């Protein structure tokens, strides 16, 4: 009888634990039978360095407590809504970076690619064309996607390392941004182009009505709950692997609480003039949420996403499985460009203008930091869109809080650097412990 256990022996000796089994790689959600099991399995994972998002979430709480103790306005509805808006660019750029980081590649150009997309969008909506807002957005996104494809083709066809190709992009697209901004904004002067299209401005500055926010929250949470519960029930009926029931409930509750908090905060009146209330969930929150859901589904539920993880995990195995590595890699760079373009459009809407002063170099470093702080591996194969969301929130929180306290840019940079280093070190230290112990 072939039994696939190293511990089974012909004389039926007592099984001994298999030292080769790396318990830390076991996903508790798939191996745990109960929520208690799940918590215990997480304990093992954390000790072994597979801590996932735990350190960063704890870190975020610590940062929030510090800022709140320094400046009580930090946790006000107005400031938190502001923080959500500020985080949008970091989150979107972080999600853009996740596509290529999962492949073990990097894209250093996305800050300026986003800037170029912003200029194209503004210019398309501006006179003399005066094209509608959606044409302007599509134009910007098409340009950034084409840039992504171009860079992807150079990486895959000419086999130039992505670090070099996109480093060239970092310089080249900054040049393009300055050129376009000077040309389009020439009459206004200063290389700054104002955004006058009201819908484009509303992407960030407009709000849902209070009622619409609540309705969306209820519909969204109910939809999420129904999706998880029905899927679990279906899988249980077919005796497929199902996460513990308690875990599914915990997930739904967590999403409901987070969603409720966001909507409640955004729906509070944050206007300064009593007669003129400002309230409601900013459109940009929905845009980020929609992008997050779309990209998470793409990575988790399509062949393309599966192949991205496969290539990042073991490119040779993917090649032998008949996967067209070049096509998947190029598509990933295209999606990075597309998402960066969206970030550029959002940034433009937030600023109300776009100029040649956009610091794309800083933006891309924040984007990589957002993805890595959340837990994305720079070596490929490990990461999620959710990590970029959390990482982007952390970065925006630091920027926002430091600004409130009135610390200088120099201090902001250094604190962000420390957080990034701390996040990476927690991971590395735990990992080293686990290899030493085993």
């Amino acid at each position: 009888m072939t039994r696939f256990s190293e511990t089974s022996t012909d004389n039926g000796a007592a099984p001994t634990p298999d030292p080769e089994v790396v318990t830390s790689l076991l996903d508790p959600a798939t191996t745990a039978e109960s929520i208690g099991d799940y918590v215990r399995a997480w304990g093992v994972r954390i000790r072994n360095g597979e801590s996932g998002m735990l350190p960063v979430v704890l870190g975020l709480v610590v940062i929030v407590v510090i800022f709140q103790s320094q400046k009580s306005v930090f946790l006000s509805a107005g400031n938190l809504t502001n923080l959500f808006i500020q985080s949008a660019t970091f989150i979107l750029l972080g999600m853009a970076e996740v596509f290529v980081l999962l492949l073990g590649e990097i894209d250093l150009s996305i800050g300026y690619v986003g800037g170029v997309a912003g200029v194209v969008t503004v210019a398309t909506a501006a006179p003399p064309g005066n094209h509608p807002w959606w044409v302007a957005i599509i134009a910007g996104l098409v340009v950034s996607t084409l840039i992504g494809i171009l860079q992807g083709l150079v990486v895959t066809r000419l086999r130039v390392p992505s670090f070099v190709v996109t480093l060239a992009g970092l310089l080249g697209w900054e040049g393009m941004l300055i050129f376009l901004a000077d040309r389009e904004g020439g009459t206004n002067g200063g290389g700054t182009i104002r955004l006058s299209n009201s819908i484009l401005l509303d992407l960030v500055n407009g709000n849902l009505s209070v009622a619409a926010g609540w309705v969306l929250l209820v519909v969204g949470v109910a939809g999420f709950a129904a999706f998880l519960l029905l899927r679990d029930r279906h899988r249980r009926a077919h005796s497929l692997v199902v996460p513990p029931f308690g875990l599914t409930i915990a997930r739904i509750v967590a999403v409901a609480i987070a969603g409720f908090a966001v909507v409640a905060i955004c729906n509070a009146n944050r206007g300064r003039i009593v007669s003129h209330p400002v309230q409601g969930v900013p459109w940009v929150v929905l845009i980020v949420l929609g992008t997050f859901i779309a990209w998470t589904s793409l990575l988790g539920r399509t062949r393309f996403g599966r192949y991205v993880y496969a290539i990042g995990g073991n490119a040779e195995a993917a090649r032998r499985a008949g996967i067209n590595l070049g096509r998947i890699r190029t598509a990933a760079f295209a999606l990075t460009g597309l998402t960066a373009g969206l970030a550029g459009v959002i940034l433009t809407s937030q600023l109300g203008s776009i100029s040649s002063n956009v610091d794309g170099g800083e933006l891309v470093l924040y984007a990589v930091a957002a993805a890595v702080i959340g837990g994305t591996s720079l070596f490929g194969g490990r990461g999620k869109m959710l990590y970029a969301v959390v990482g982007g929130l952390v970065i925006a929180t630091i920027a926002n809080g430091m600004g409130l306290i009135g610390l200088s840019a120099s201090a902001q940079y250094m604190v962000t650097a420390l957080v990034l280093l701390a996040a990476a070190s927690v991971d590395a230290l735990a990992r080293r412990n686990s290899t030493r112990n085993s």
Partner: protein
Amino acid sequence: MTFPADQAGAGPDYSGPAPAAVPSSGAMADTADTADTADTADTKWILETRGITKRFGAVEALSNVNFHVAAGQVTALLGDNGAGKSTLIKCLAGIWEPEEGQTLWDGNPVRIRGPKVATGLGIETVYQDLALCDNLDIVQNMFLGRELTSSRLLDEDSMEKQARRTLAELSVTTVRSIRQAVGSLSGGQRQAVAVAKAVMQNARMVIMDEPTAALGVAQTAMVLDLIRTLRSRGIAVVVISHNLNDVFQVADRIAVLYLGRLAVEAPVSAFDQQSAVYAITTGRFDATAVGA
């Protein structure tokens, strides 16, 4: 070694002839080129190469190799390091195409131009490095490159069911969860996943490159059992191994490569440990040494 009752018969999908009886041959021919004449005339070759030659620059990795794989049998491919074993199986798996010679599949000439052609024929290869993605789970690895979809989305439920069935058929029962990352498995379990991945696609011939090289005693025994299970399901197995004990435990036939030439191929009964070692190290096969 016994098999569970439900696996004792030939595999249900397999419609080929029963494995040919292995002649207990003292009448081995003594020259390598005609060694296979010792097989009975009705031995059915699922795969046959005729004079294939593969060069890497000036190196002739394979010279004029006539290699045969019998349907429903385990063929051990032996040879010293650099003898050309990996090159030969890569030619069969569609990684390389030989410069000269012909390959017959079910008696029909075929050109195996790429891995997809090989898998299309029913040739599945389990490489030495296994080619698994550690970050993906067992199901995801088993279906890598041939995922099932419904309305363009991955059909995880169907894939998981099918993977579970295949693992059960191979009696791979003790992995903790079919949804655990392959990086968390032991060497033997990884080998099992790689084999299950191969078998799941209605493989008719499974090639394994040194499947036991990295394994301990107990895990090796499991992999050998797995090979026997494949054979009992009517699948031809080609296994490269340096471990003659393993070979003599599972092989029905042995082929020895020596510096790119096929030194000898014959039923296992024509060999003993000594003559096998002699063939591997000298490239010569001395039939008179058998039983001496």
